[in-house]
């Protein structure tokens, strides 16, 4: 059994310091690792990244993150990544990590991803250069995620993105902005590997649960969706370890 905690869209700055910490201090009693699905900061500055590292670092369990669109706002994503990695947090972008947890190997492949839309209402690689560049960006992120997912050797495989891989977890958002919230190509990438769980954020007004066309469970862990510091998901359950309540909860 492995338990992973997950949240996204925490948008940390000075004014958020300390808000998550009490719940995060309890995290090692509840989960074996924490995954954060992008939008770690408000404007993507190094100062904000350091605030994120202060709030989410030093937990006693591995922390693995991807960046979100907010984390690109100041065009400092490389410096931001270094600041976060300096706190011992793993930042994925078209890459993967394998964690040894409770005798199991948890593989996590991550990318920010990009928009593009979903079947019946998606952007096409056609027309103006700007539109072709947009769709090429969509396809590049998704193709890389697929490559990385297929390359990981582990006991349980998790895909971590900021943008959504399916439309079901966008329910609640205006239909008009679905193409800016995710793309079907991410779902195809997730289905190209034996993925056990896909986690994303970005859609603050979306829904929590969905599945890819291939049947992989998808969870939107955007903070305004889950409405708590993090959710906890259990993978590789043993038959006698299915328990809906968390230890230490009165």
């Amino acid at each position, binding site marked *: 059994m492995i338990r992973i905690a997950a949240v996204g869209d925490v948008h940390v700055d000075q*004014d958020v310091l300390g808000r998550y910490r009490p719940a995060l201090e309890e995290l090692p009693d509840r989960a074996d690792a924490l995954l954060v699905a992008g939008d770690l900061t408000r404007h993507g500055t190094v100062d904000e990244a350091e605030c994120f590292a202060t709030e989410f670092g030093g937990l006693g369990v591995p922390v693995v993150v991807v960046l979100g669109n907010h984390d690109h706002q100041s065009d400092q994503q490389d410096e931001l990544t270094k600041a976060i990695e300096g706190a011992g947090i793993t930042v994925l972008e078209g890459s993967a990590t394998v964690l040894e947890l409770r005798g199991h190997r948890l593989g996590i492949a991550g990318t920010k991803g990009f928009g593009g839309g979903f079947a019946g209402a998606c952007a096409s690689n056609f027309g103006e250069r700007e539109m072709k560049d947009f769709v090429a960006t969509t396809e590049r992120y998704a193709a890389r995620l697929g490559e990385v997912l297929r390359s990981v050797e582990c006991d349980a495989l998790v895909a971590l993105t900021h943008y959504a891989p399916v439309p079901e977890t966008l329910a609640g958002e205006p239909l008009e902005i679905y193409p800016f919230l995710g793309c079907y190509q991410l779902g195809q990438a997730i289905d190209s590997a034996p993925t056990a769980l896909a986690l994303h954020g970005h859609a603050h007004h979306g829904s929590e649960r969905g599945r890819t066309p291939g049947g992989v469970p998808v969870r939107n862990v955007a903070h305004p969706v889950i409405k708590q510091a993090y959710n906890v998901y259990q993978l590789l359950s043993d038959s006698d370890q299915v328990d*809906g309540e968390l230890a230490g909860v009165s």
Partner: protein
Amino acid sequence: MTKQIDLEAEIQRLLTENDRVAEQGITVQRRDHQVVLGGDVESGRRRDEICRQITEHFPDVEIVCDIGVTRTQAPSEVEEIS
């Protein structure tokens, strides 16, 4: 003078593009004589800044703020993925 039909769009762009706000998750709904703001932000200071910015940029608009601050308590349940 902002046309009514553009008001929601202008408020949405202000909330996203203004450096002091940078929020994409705020809903803007017009009522007869009011604009109702909804959604969740990470601190009370951010909620207050949103209302301040809109009041400053659109002084003729009556704002009703239903924006909440997202809770950060630890979870009490675990979901088994199968």
